[in-house]
């Protein structure tokens, strides 16, 4: 990929600034975003000759090396290395089919799920995962024709016992997580829940105050475009939990 030499900086800087300014806007399918100038075009963007357009309703990202559009709606499309919450939909001979909240099902091979040696002739592998079990896993492979493979060989991958599942729009998941995990950590600490957030829009949670946590998640889903959302959620989760936490502590004392 060619990149232009960094000459005539001030001019280019102002151009970049303008592009950055532009990137705050919302684009619709067919909207012109920027000139390609040797940059990589991916995500919700496409190019026609030298010009880059949007494919979807979303927010454009114009970077130094790449141009993309973050969609604001749409179903989950599996991407490699995404960490997701899936539900086992069927048990096969040497693996499992996993529902990943996408039009495409995923396959979890036995050797990517279990560490010990398993003799498939003699073992019923449903003892590891059975239909309906929720797992937190990683997408390990996506082929061109969207055959998806998931793996449990990743940090934090595990079977999720009990708990309940909440679904939200996949494109709003980053909003739920917040910058550096600020939002989700707040929900976790204030509701005293264990929460696993899948990139595919499936959220698994378990804990005492899960009703509060679900309320917060649904609120984020509903108002993901409102600024100052963190404060609103803070208010919603509110003092009462803190108070109840304190009173609990007191009672323990």
């Amino acid at each position: 990929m060619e990149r232009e030499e960094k000459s005539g900086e001030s001019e280019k800087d102002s151009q970049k600034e303008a592009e950055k300014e532009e990137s705050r806007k919302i684009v619709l399918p067919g909207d012109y975003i920027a000139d390609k100038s040797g940059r990589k075009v991916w995500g919700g963007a496409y190019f026609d000759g030298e010009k880059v357009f949007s494919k979807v309703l979303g927010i454009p990202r114009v970077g130094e090396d790449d141009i993309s559009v973050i969609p604001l709606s749409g179903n989950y499309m599996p991407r490699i290395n995404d960490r997701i919450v899936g539900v086992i939909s069927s048990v096969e001979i040497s693996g499992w089919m996993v529902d990943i909240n996408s039009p495409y099902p995923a396959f979890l091979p036995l050797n990517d799920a279990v560490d010990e040696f398993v003799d498939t002739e003699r073992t019923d592998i449903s003892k590891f995962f059975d239909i309906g079990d929720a797992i937190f896993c990683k997408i390990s492979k996506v082929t061109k024709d969207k055959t998806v493979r998931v793996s449990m060989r990743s940090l934090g991958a595990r079977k999720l016992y009990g708990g309940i599942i909440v679904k939200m729009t996949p494109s709003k998941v980053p909003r739920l997580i917040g910058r550096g995990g600020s939002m989700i950590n707040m929900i976790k600490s204030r509701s005293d829940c264990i929460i696993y957030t899948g990139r595919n829009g499936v959220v698994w949670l378990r804990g005492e105050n899960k009703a509060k946590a679900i309320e917060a998640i649904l609120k984020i889903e509903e108002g993901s475009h409102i600024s100052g959302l963190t404060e609103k959620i803070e208010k919603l989760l509110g003092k009462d939990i803190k108070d109840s936490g304190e009173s609990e502590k007191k009672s323990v004392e």
Partner: protein
Amino acid sequence: MVMAKTDEKLIVKGKRKDGRKPEDLRPVKLELDVVKRADGSSQASFGNTVAVVAVYGPRKLYPRFLQESDTGILRCRYNMAPFSVDERKKPGPSRRSVEISKVTRLAFEPAVFLEDFPKVTIDVFVEIIAADGSTRVTGINAASVAMAAAGVPMRDLVSACSVGKVDGEYVVDLNGIEDNNSDADIAFAMMPNKDLITLLQMDGRLTKEELMKLLEMAGENCRKIYSMQREVIMKKYERVEAEDERGDVE
């Protein structure tokens, strides 16, 4: 609303039956999210013509033999409600609705990135709940907005309008009575940013010059409709704030 043939003059002193000038559109109303459980939905009304569109997908496609391993498919269904016309329409598909379903699909196929979705389908349901001419273009306009809202990747929005020749004059956005008594009428859809036509149907007789003139008018009005489609989607998301990074999971 009289749909039958009439001998009356439809354009008197440069004004049409409903008081419009020949080059005017009827009052347009577009609305988003009218079907709660759909991935994207909209309602469009052009005068008395009302279309409700629901878009589902991309979603799994069954029966499996319909699946294409290198591309997704688009399925459209155009249906008129029995109560949408003066005399009750027999429910269910007809020769006419099958044709319109097909041309609706063909109007969108060049716009949608179907190659991004191998083996799956995008389903578009167009229900005409009140019909007063130009139903197929109303359906296409609504479907375009609904698909954009559903997050379907497209090269451009599709905008459509009807034009025709009534009482020897060129008119835009024909209503029911004009449609039934026109010398010719054209259903037209295009991708306004790309300047590409995706639907062109004509009923009646026109000379080449007349046709070119009408196409020009159609293009002009499609751009007007495009800006309305834009506006309705933008209104919903105008305060969207960008989230900078894909935050860390867990």
